[in-house]
């Protein structure tokens, strides 16, 4: 019998306490404040959704990752695996009276079963934005720019946003037979360029050589403005040219935001094609090897909820973001006040006054002065006696970082 189970937390979950929690909180609050500054309004949704709802926004292959339960009437509920679908549900049903465009944001825990990837957490906090009802590349640029600003302002040293275009990939694959299209796309999603090349090589009898060469070059094009030009040269259809034009437009908007140095286009970037319909993005930062944010345009989702609207957005993985943001020294350290019974009023009054001035203060009653002096050397303490200490003393103590051992008038122990 495993008698210690109650003392552990479930696998795939983490606790956040003390400095870790302070760091988490600071990062989260800063991100949300930045979102608010750009006009995004925060929302919250239930952790549990009907499975039917959740299935609107996830890929068939991801269904196995859902954590499900039954409600009292036997309907299946799932812990939300992501937030974009619940947001779509709300936009379509609760916010029908609100005019477009809508800017919404959230910071919410999401859940996915891990399968074979047992090192991944089960619970991930998604801190993200959705910009609904705006078609132009300026909307996509805004999403990218906001991410870049968030990362920059958090002090993330070195990061890059990779940008792709699902429409471009679709257009390039257009003239390939459907099954082969799916195979090529899957290879790109898996980032298996060897399989991708092998598939293309296998088509040399059935597909035009120029198209095959373009497709082979396509995922290798990444970089700044020069990449945009190289892709333009590859585009073979009207749709592909249109996608290139959109990216060019995006690039000009990014230049206006001053962030082109942090972005590069990657024509091999492919995310779930049933969901993403246009410009897509993924962000990376030193020192971790996994992505810290991802998103893109998903113009078909809201229609599934009865309110056809275009939409784009991006989500940060808060836990990973925490590891790339440098931790900050705590500003004001808390003050601890120890007192014995007869000094209680003075101690409490003083503590309240300090709290009113913005200090973080803890009070503890001790049995006698000997107990207080036993604590004093190790901590910042103030002796409270007949005199209540004024602000000059406090400021000085703070600035010099010294502990005042004993004020005048208090007997030594």
């Amino acid at each position: 019998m495993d008698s210690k189970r109650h003392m552990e937390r479930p696998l795939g979950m983490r606790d956040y306490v003390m400095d870790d929690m302070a760091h988490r909180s600071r990062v989260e609050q800063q991100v949300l404040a930045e979102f608010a500054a750009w006009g995004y309004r925060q929302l919250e949704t239930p952790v549990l959704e009907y499975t039917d709802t959740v299935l609107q926004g996830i890929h068939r292959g991801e269904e196995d990752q859902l954590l499900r339960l039954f409600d009292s009437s036997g309907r299946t509920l799932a812990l939300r695996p992501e937030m974009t679908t619940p947001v779509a549900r709300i936009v379509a049903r609760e916010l029908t009276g609100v005019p477009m465009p809508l800017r919404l944001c959230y910071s919410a825990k999401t859940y996915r079963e891990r399968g074979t990837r047992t090192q991944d957490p089960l619970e991930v906090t998604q801190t993200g934005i959705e910009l609904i009802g705006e078609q132009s590349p300026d909307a996509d640029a805004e999403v990218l720019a906001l991410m870049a600003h968030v990362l920059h302002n958090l002090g993330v040293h070195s990061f890059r946003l990779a940008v792709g275009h699902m429409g471009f990939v679709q257009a390039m694959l257009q003239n390939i037979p459907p099954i082969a299209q799916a195979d090529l796309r899957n290879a790109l999603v898996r980032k298996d360029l060897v399989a991708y090349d092998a598939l293309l090589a296998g088509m040399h009898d059935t597909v035009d050589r120029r198209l095959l060469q373009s497709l082979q070059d396509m995922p290798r094009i990444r970089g700044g403005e020069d990449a945009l030009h190289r892709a333009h040269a590859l585009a073979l259809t009207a749709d592909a040219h249109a996608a290139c034009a959109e990216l060019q437009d995006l690039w000009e908007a990014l230049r206006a935001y001053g962030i082109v140095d942090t972005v590069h286009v990657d024509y091999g970037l492919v995310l779930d094609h049933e969901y993403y319909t246009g410009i897509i993005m993924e962000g990376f930062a030193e020192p971790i090897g996994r992505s810290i944010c991802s998103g893109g345009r998903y113009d078909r989702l809201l229609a599934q909820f009865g309110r056809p609207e275009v939409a784009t957005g991006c989500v940060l993985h808060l836990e990973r973001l925490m590891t790339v943001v440098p931790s900050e020294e705590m500003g004001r350290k808390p003050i601890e006040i120890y007192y014995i019974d007869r000094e209680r009023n003075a101690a409490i009054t003083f503590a309240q006054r300090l709290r009113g001035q913005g200090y973080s203060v803890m009070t503890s009653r001790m049995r006698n002065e000997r107990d207080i002096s036993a604590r004093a050397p190790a901590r910042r303490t103030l002796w409270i006696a007949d005199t209540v200490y004024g602000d000059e003393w406090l400021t000085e103590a703070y600035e010099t970082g010294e502990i005042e051992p004993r004020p005048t008038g208090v007997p030594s122990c």
Partner: protein
Amino acid sequence: MLTLALAKGRILAETEEQLRKAGFTPPEDMLSSRKLVYFDMSREIRYLLVKPSDVPVWVEHGGADMGIVGKDVLHEAEPDLYELLDLAYGVCRVVVAGTPHLDLSMVSRVATSYPRYATDYFRERGRQVELIELGGSVELAPLIGLADCIVDLVQTGQTLRDNGLVALDEIGTVSARLVANRRSYQLRAPEVDEIQTALRQATQGGTSR
């Protein structure tokens, strides 16, 4: 400084040879010393020598920017990383093997170090088989009656022959692959591309195997 994780064991000697061909200068003692970290003399590259099954772990998590490891390892681990290049050496076949007259359609127990290859092979033939996962000396399983057959990697076929087994069907071939971490692919694009190009040229230039 780019970090490259190299798979120890079977393919290390050919890896070292290919790196030289591509214009890199791995240290002389890389194959003989028991050190695990090496620096390239001419470029800003650090080599880590790790167990083959660990290469995808190092690369996926970004501890290594790139890696060289067999496709068999990648196929089983299904890591989230870029597979950039088939280096065309370290070529082996993945086979189903057993005693010479074994009827594969009657097999119910398969011993293997490659559960994914094994499961997929039999599933494609409409069979669900019981898997016994072994780390090594897999050829013993049918000899001792632990399993009906095995799914294993074969180079010359000598080990199979020496143990009285034959390859009954071939699942595929594997070779050494160049892989890259997703962050490094984006954030260190020039270095990643430089290594990729150099190794591609070496691979295309002189494979007479």
